């Protein structure tokens, strides 16, 4: 018996028409969308695009109809996601709500929370960010110090979250904060649904190395939030977050972050594809197709109600290596300087963007070292 449960299942044939719909939508909607911006994929923020996606019913598409969802299968959602990412569509505005916050509320939220918020996510109106890391808590997430204290009317939150993607545009943050003393580490943490417009909250965009402002620092200075902001049980935050993370490791975003560069590369070498170009590009295609099969296999397992935590972690790890290698491969095959100026060719622009972004692929959502430690434990090393 194999230790892994990856299989060779395809996406259902029924997905084919949906795929064609998505492609037609993207062809039309992004007809003039420049190659360079496609490099941002799931960090590209465009509320107008999100509104169009929502109008097609492609946000919250697996959720119950009573919350505005489409009650479609996780595999159909997979098709929509992979088409969006392969096209480099600017999905950031609805990305977190659709992928993490909505499912969290569905699982742990109160009926009031669900009814109030999920339909707004589906309509492309409510945007979310995730408050996890803090200045002194990166890999060591259990050491977070932002705390929430009960007040008469609700909770008072104090502390600082960092590397919060898109917070400057968001209405809500799902935050992991301490509700009991830190001696307990994993215990004593809880999740909150925090309206970022609450008094006492300051959002400051952080400029990244490439000059973009994708992530933020969010400071809570005795911020008062309502009593019903708690998500799930008090003290159960760690378990809730870990369950959420474990199955979010295997989506198409784990191997398609650099896909727009692969298409540029193929076009750049199409006219003179020598032995080196053919071999190197063929190798990328082989890994792309294989990672996609692995990712789809995990989607099938999830759809079947299984808990493929190990398989999902493996997809993330192998996917990050693949994505991170691609800018170097592209550079090795085209002797052209990366350049994010308007004067650059589309290839040079996409390369310039992704070359600078690639090192983050093995940091985001947990470092490679932490992830490999999780895989090792999953293998039974003790």
């Amino acid at each position, binding site marked *: *018996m*194999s*230790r*892994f449960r*990856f*299989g*060779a299942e*395809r996406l259902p044939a029924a997905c084919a028409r949906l*795929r064609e719909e998505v492609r037609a939508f993207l062809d039309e909607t992004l007809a003039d969308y420049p190659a360079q911006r496609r490099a941002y994929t799931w960090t590209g923020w465009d509320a107008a695009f999100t509104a169009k996606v929502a109008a097609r019913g492609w946000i919250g598409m697996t959720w119950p109809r009573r919350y505005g969802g489409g009650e479609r299968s996780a595999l159909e959602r997979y098709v929509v996601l*992979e088409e969006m990412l*392969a096209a480099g569509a600017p999905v950031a505005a609805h990305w977190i709500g659709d992928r993490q916050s909505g499912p969290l509320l569905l699982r742990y939220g109160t009926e009031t929370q669900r009814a109030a918020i999920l339909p707004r996510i589906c309509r492309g109106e409510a945007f979310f960010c995730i408050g996890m890391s803090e200045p002194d808590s990166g890999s060591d997430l259990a050491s977070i110090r932002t705390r929430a204290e009960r007040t008469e009317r609700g909770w008072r939150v104090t502390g600082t979250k960092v590397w919060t993607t898109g917070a400057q545009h968001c209405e809500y943050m799902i935050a992991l904060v301490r509700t009991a003393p830190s001696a307990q580490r994993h215990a004593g943490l809880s999740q909150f649904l925090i309206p970022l417009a609450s008094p006492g909250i300051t959002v400051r965009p952080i400029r990244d190395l490439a000059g973009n402002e994708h992530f933020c620092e969010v400071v809570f200075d005795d911020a008062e939030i309502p009593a019903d902001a708690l998500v799930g049980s008090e003290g159960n935050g760690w378990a809730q977050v870990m369950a959420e993370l474990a199955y979010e490791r295997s989506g198409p975003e784990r191997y398609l972050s650099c*896909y727009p560069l*692969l*298409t*540029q*590369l*193929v*076009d750049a*070498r*199409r006219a003179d*594809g020598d*032995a080196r*170009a*053919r*071999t*190197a*590009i*063929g*190798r990328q*295609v*082989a*890994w*792309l*197709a*294989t*990672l*996609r*099969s*692995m990712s789809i*296999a995990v989607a099938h397992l999830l759809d079947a109600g299984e808990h493929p935590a190990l*398989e999902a972690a*493996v997809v993330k*790890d*192998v996917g990050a*290596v693949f994505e991170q290698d691609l800018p170097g491969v592209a550079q090795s095959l085209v002797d052209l300087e990366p350049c994010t100026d308007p004067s650059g060719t589309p290839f040079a622009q996409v390369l310039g963007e992704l070359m600078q972004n690639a090192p983050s692929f093995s940091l985001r959502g947990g470092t490679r*070292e932490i*992830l*490999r*430690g999780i*895989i*090792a434990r*999953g*293998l*039974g*090393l*003790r």
Partner: protein
Amino acid sequence: MNETRRLLDDTVTRLFAESLDAERLAAAERGVWFEALWNAVESTGLLRAHLDETAGGAGASWHEAFVIARACGRHAVPLPVVETMLAGYLAARAGFEVPPGPLGVAVVAADDAGAKASRLLHRVPWGRRVSHVVAAMPVAAGLHLALVPAAGAEVSRGHNVAREPRDTLALPANDVRWRATPLPADAVSLYGALLRSAQMAGALETILELSVGYANDRVQFGRPIGQFQAIQQELARLAGLVAAAGTAAECAARAASEARASAIGEVGATGDPAFEIACAKVVVGEAAEHGPRIAHQVHGAIGFTYEHRLHFFTRRLWAWRAEFGTPETWAERLGAVALAAGGPRLWPLVTAR
């Protein structure tokens, strides 16, 4: 994995696991032939499972063949199981009656007239043991095949680095009768790569299990080496390679099972399994380069001894990596398809699978 294949997997795993330990694998390398195990494999019909019922098969698919071949890799089965499956498929597709016993495969170059090949059949797997060799001669129009009895041939023994027999057979006369087939010219390397990928996926699983087991057992500096972060990081990497290899190999088998006969042999064509087979040989081949390195690094000196089991799997991976085309040869073929398609058509090519 569906229920049929799960049962098949259990059956072959039990058969091989009970029969093969390090001592017997070593004996095989000294030239011992395991007649009883061979007979058991043959009598259970595993060798023909993938053939049409008209050819004496069970009408199962390449997907079932994959399960059998992977088990052969997991257990380093020192018998020409996979080669006999390959030869049987080719022979059946050419309309030959598939003979019993171990079968070999050989590719021969056409002579200048495009008609006759040399009397020599090179690097025939288990050439010393086979009853017949399916000889394949690529020609302009496709593939010509012949079913050649091995009796009477003069055998020069040779081996790959796993010490599996790779013998040269000199036929008594140059009277081979070739037959035109509906197969593509590269059918031997295509299905050979498919089955070798499956075996390699199995061998990779075994080296992961051996490495995890050893890391949990071996104590240095007062604790199992599996507790050291450097070892954990490397074993996690090995797990990724093994998982990718297994997926790639199985997807190739699934694609071969579903292929329309007309499309076979064109890497880019819809429904042609050559795309997935190429992906498999590339990904599995890379895993077979880096995986054994990690396994040996974890095992240290003990894994370098002939006494330890590890090398029966790592040497097979090194040998098989180059058989039926190196990963780079297959990658180049795949890259040519991608370049021909062009950037915008690449994604549809990948998702058509």
